[in-house]
């Protein structure tokens, strides 16, 4: 039997389940097959209009339908697919009852253009400013957008669906290369 603790007496941590969705495909099998066949997920962007953009290629997940669309809704859907696969492979807990906490790395979240444009269309005046946007935002018409565009929204959803325990922790994609970010900011 293999030891369950390392030389310093710390528990050895093992991976028992994985889930993955990338521009190559959904699931470990699909990704591994395409990866080992030398395929690339990088292709012309179709998820949004690229007219006028210098960047036209990316590794986008463009085969998972989300309606109405926002990148946060897509993130949430991808997280669902990957989490389902990981928990199934691990065969741990039961449906809606994962026996541990959730740690999630997410991209920054904010109100997006389709929703902002929806607000713009709800305004009857011309040459309006942000006060007009604020005036149409309340009153219950867009209640769902509050939850949708909170930073905690995806983690909140996963915790509820998969029954993870305790407070979910959302980590920002981290700036290991902060110095380089800064250099480009200065240029």
């Amino acid at each position, binding site marked *: 039997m293999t030891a369950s603790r390392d030389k310093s007496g710390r528990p050895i941590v093992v991976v028992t389940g994985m889930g993955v969705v990338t521009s190559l495909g959904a699931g470990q099998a699909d990704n591994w097959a395409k990866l080992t066949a030398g395929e690339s997920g990088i292709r012309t962007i179709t998820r949004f*209009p690229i007219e006028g953009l210098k960047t036209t290629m990316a590794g986008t997940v463009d085969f998972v339908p989300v309606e109405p669309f926002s990148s946060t809704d897509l993130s949430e859907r991808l997280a669902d697919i990957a989490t389902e696969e990981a928990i199934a492979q691990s065969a741990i807990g039961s449906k809606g009852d994962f026996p541990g906490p959730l740690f999630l790395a997410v991209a*920054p979240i*904010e109100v997006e253009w389709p929703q902002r444009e929806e607000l*713009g269309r709800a305004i009857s005046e011309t040459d*309006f400013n*942000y006060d007009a946007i*604020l005036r149409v935002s309340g009153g219950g018409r867009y209640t769902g957008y509050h939850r949708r565009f909170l930073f905690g929204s995806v*983690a909140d959803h996963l915790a509820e669906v998969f029954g993870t325990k305790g407070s979910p922790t959302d980590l920002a994609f981290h700036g290991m290369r902060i110095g380089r970010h800064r250099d480009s900011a200065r240029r």
Partner: protein
Amino acid sequence: MTEAKPSHPGSTEVWITGIGLATSLGEGLDANWEALNARRINIDEKGFAPYIVHPLAPVNFDTQIPKKGDQRQMEGWQRIGTYAAGLALDSAGVKGNKEILGRMDMIVAAGGGERDLAVDCNILNLEAKGNSAPGFLNERLMNDLRPTLFLAQLSNLLAGNIAIVHGVTGSSRTFMGEEAAGVDAARIALARIAAGQSDIALIGGSQNGERKDLLVLYEFGDFNLKDKFAPVWARRQSSAGFALGSAGAFLVIESRAHAEARGAKPYARLSNVVADLAHRKHPGEITATLEKLWSKLGKLEAKGAIITGATGAEPVTSEERAFLGEHPDFAVRATGTMFGHTMETQFPLGLALAALSLSRGALFPPNDPTGLEVEMSRPPTQIVVVGAGHWRGEGMALVEAIK
């Protein structure tokens, strides 16, 4: 050091040795303490009418962010946070100490970047006039946005700026997720030091509450306090909600051994931080979760104090009121009344005010016409910090006096 690594993980005592505050009440500990004791509240009822916000008191950013170029490439919330972080480092006596800063860990609770309101409105107005070609939005964004805007908006650039301006270059984490992120920043930093994985950490958050784009997000859920200011406990269903506040709150926490070895004077002990996520599907779940967290804090003496980040939003504030009703011998203070709701920053702010109160040997006075907050005449020895998010997430901390 007076003590080697702990004999068993989790046994290390953790002290709060630095506090940095930049709020609507003022800059620094004395200004905030004096304002709290004078029951002062700083609100702007006109600039964002009908919404009420607690604007940042005037501060001289140059004193903590000497390079104008650094200030220019930051958005407001990053300037406030970098400034408050500098104050915390000063307060801990580690500012400029390259040896310590080089291994100081940092956990920041951050929100998101600020929109360019003029660009947004211009695009929406042009679209309303019929500009709907597929490339129109791209063209406007490419031409109208400052190229640096995207980087200035990234949540983890607050930690990045603190690293660059103050030289805090140990490990770095950024937590997101509104109020709960502030709880997690303290919880994880404490756990790492208590387990002997870290000696010293900088934790905190910042918010610029004077933003119409942020008001829009909370207006979707009708959370903004409108028309007339009322203290948190006086906001009932008809006026439920919060007034956004601008604030930066940072703390330096370290193991007792590390603090003693460098002769640092503690403000207080950070004894425990706990967090949970009530489902909030049925009435009473938040109350029950708060009660559960309370029972996990450790031994609580009678007649203590509670500093809460209660938002004024419903139903969470009523559920918290029910929880507080179960502990009537504790003197309660709601920071939302004086500082507004500072979201990710509210829990670190509560920790800072708890440590400050313990170090000054007094709880600041009540500021509440409803009578829920009562006077506390004796010096507090324990203060429980409570944070129940406006939408999700509950957290609690125990901060204790060092005798």
